[in-house]
């Protein structure tokens, strides 16, 4: 009984450690990529300290308020977003033996948690009682309906060869060939949709300049800090899941499994973070059109091909 409780606490601690560590790494990567594209000299120590200094600045900043906000919901929104990231990170197997939550339906839990991100962002935009922020919230809802479908469909594609919705069989099914090669359409569609989902970089549509910052318009001080941290938490969670379902998770030669998992997660995280520097922000309506007319059919083709492969393999 005590041992069980201890191991549960240890696993929860592991999830929190991965989330916090990954968030810090993502923030540092963002600083590095910004410096590199601006061709400013990078000093490693300063780059490592900058996210912390910015966080301290935000934490000390005086908070501005709006007229008659829904204060409870406003405070809840970052917590909901961070909790969803934690839930989706908890189902990701970190190594072959270190599995925080071994759920039969791991990938569905992940999809459900990520579907609720729309709710968190909508509440963040709605609760300050501010027009532009509400406009941005509606924009994200419209966008959310269009990216959810390709996102969920490519995830289903990865579950097909494993013949299971649990994540450990999905990872072990990639023993001979990673899903990124077996299902070449999967990872690109996944990466685009998770950019939209974590409203980051080229797809930071609910925070666009044309709505004066949108859902983060009224944020300052500690709430702004929490919202940024929660957003990075989501980025970490989707990177870890992408590494597990497309890049073979902990599988790999020579190195121990945990290291492989960390490297793959770091690679995807760096890709996602760097996209902010290398792509311009797209317009909402063009992204919605692309999501429905390009990404959704591509995702369907992906799952169709995966089905044919599974059928041939079963023969």
């Amino acid at each position, binding site marked *: 009984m005590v041992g069980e409780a201890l191991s549960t606490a240890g696993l929860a601690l592991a999830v929190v450690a991965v989330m916090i560590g990954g968030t810090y790494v993502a923030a540092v990567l963002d600083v590095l990529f910004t410096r590199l594209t601006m061709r400013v000299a990078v000093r490693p120590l300063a780059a490592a300290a900058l996210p912390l200094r910015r966080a301290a600045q935000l934490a000390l900043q005086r908070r501005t308020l709006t007229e008659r906000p829904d204060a409870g919901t406003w405070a809840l929104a970052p917590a909901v977003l961070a909790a969803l990231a934690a839930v989706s990170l908890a189902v990701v197997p970190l190594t072959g033996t270190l599995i925080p939550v071994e759920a*039969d*339906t791991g990938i*569905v*839990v992940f999809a459900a948690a990520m579907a609720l991100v*729309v*709710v968190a962002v909508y509440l963040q935009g*709605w609760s300050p009682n501010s027009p532009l922020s509400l406009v941005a919230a509606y924009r994200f809802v419209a966008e959310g309906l269009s990216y959810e479908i390709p996102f969920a469909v490519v995830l289903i594609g990865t579950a097909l060869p494993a013949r299971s919705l649990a994540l450990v069989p999905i990872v072990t099914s990639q023993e001979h060939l990673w899903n990124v090669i077996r299902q070449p359409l999967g990872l690109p569609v996944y990466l685009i949709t998770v950019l939209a989902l974590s409203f980051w970089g080229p797809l930071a549509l609910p925070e666009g300049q044309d709505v004066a910052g949108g859902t983060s318009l009224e944020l300052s001080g500690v709430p702004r800090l929490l919202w940024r941290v929660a957003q990075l938490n989501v980025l970490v969670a989707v990177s870890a899941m992408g590494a597990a379902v497309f890049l073979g998770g902990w599988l790999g030669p020579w190195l121990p499994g945990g290291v492989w998992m960390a490297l793959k997660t770091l690679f995807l995280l760096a890709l996602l973070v760097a996209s902010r520097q290398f792509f311009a922000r797209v317009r909402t309506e063009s992204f919605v059109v692309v999501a429905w007319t390009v990404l959704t059919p591509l995702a369907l083709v992906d799952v169709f091909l995966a089905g044919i492969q599974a059928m041939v393999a079963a023969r």
Partner: protein
Amino acid sequence: MIADAVFWILAVLAVFSAWRVFRTDSMVRAAYWLLVSFVGVGLIMVMLKAEFLGVILILMMGGEMTIMAVFMVMFMMNPAGLNPMIMVHQNRAAMAAGFGSFALLSAVGLFARFPASVVAPTARATAELGTELLGDSMLVFQTAGVTLLAAMIGAVALVSVRGRFGPADEGSDAPEQQPAADADVDSSAPPSSTGPSSSAASSPTPPAPSTTPEVTEGAMPADHSHEGA
């Protein structure tokens, strides 16, 4: 022991939030209280080992409640959804019906003898459901799929640009603040015998006397109890 405690917390959460749906003063809050209720029920389903069903319920409802909040704000006279507003009719009869069905159904649950055959702890419920859906019960599954397809086509046909209810852009008008003139007085009632006060009394349920009606601003018909929060 712990499972019992978790169950009761989730059950109280689900029932409390279901009750808040109709007692909160904003459309958006109502929609998200409903979502909380669904999440509570979904988690209870997970505890009952119906893991896939519980999770998929939460997945479905996350999207649907957001759409619902958008629709409410679109069609209600309360664009941002932050202002107080509760609109009910036949409150007492509805409450009686609600309590009646609750009493009846829980009486069935409490006094009927059901066989107690608990699902085996080792059962692989998710895999069994998958085999069932694509095996013996494939016809049911396919029928559900075709029904959904028909619903989609029907919904699109009802609201499409050239549908039977007129051009699609008509819906983008601002909602009318005043009710239609024929809405508040039943034209079939004999006009001479009833004054305005007795016409309110002849409606199914008069406004509950205990509530404090706000100034109606001429916006609400006489037989609605327009309660402040």
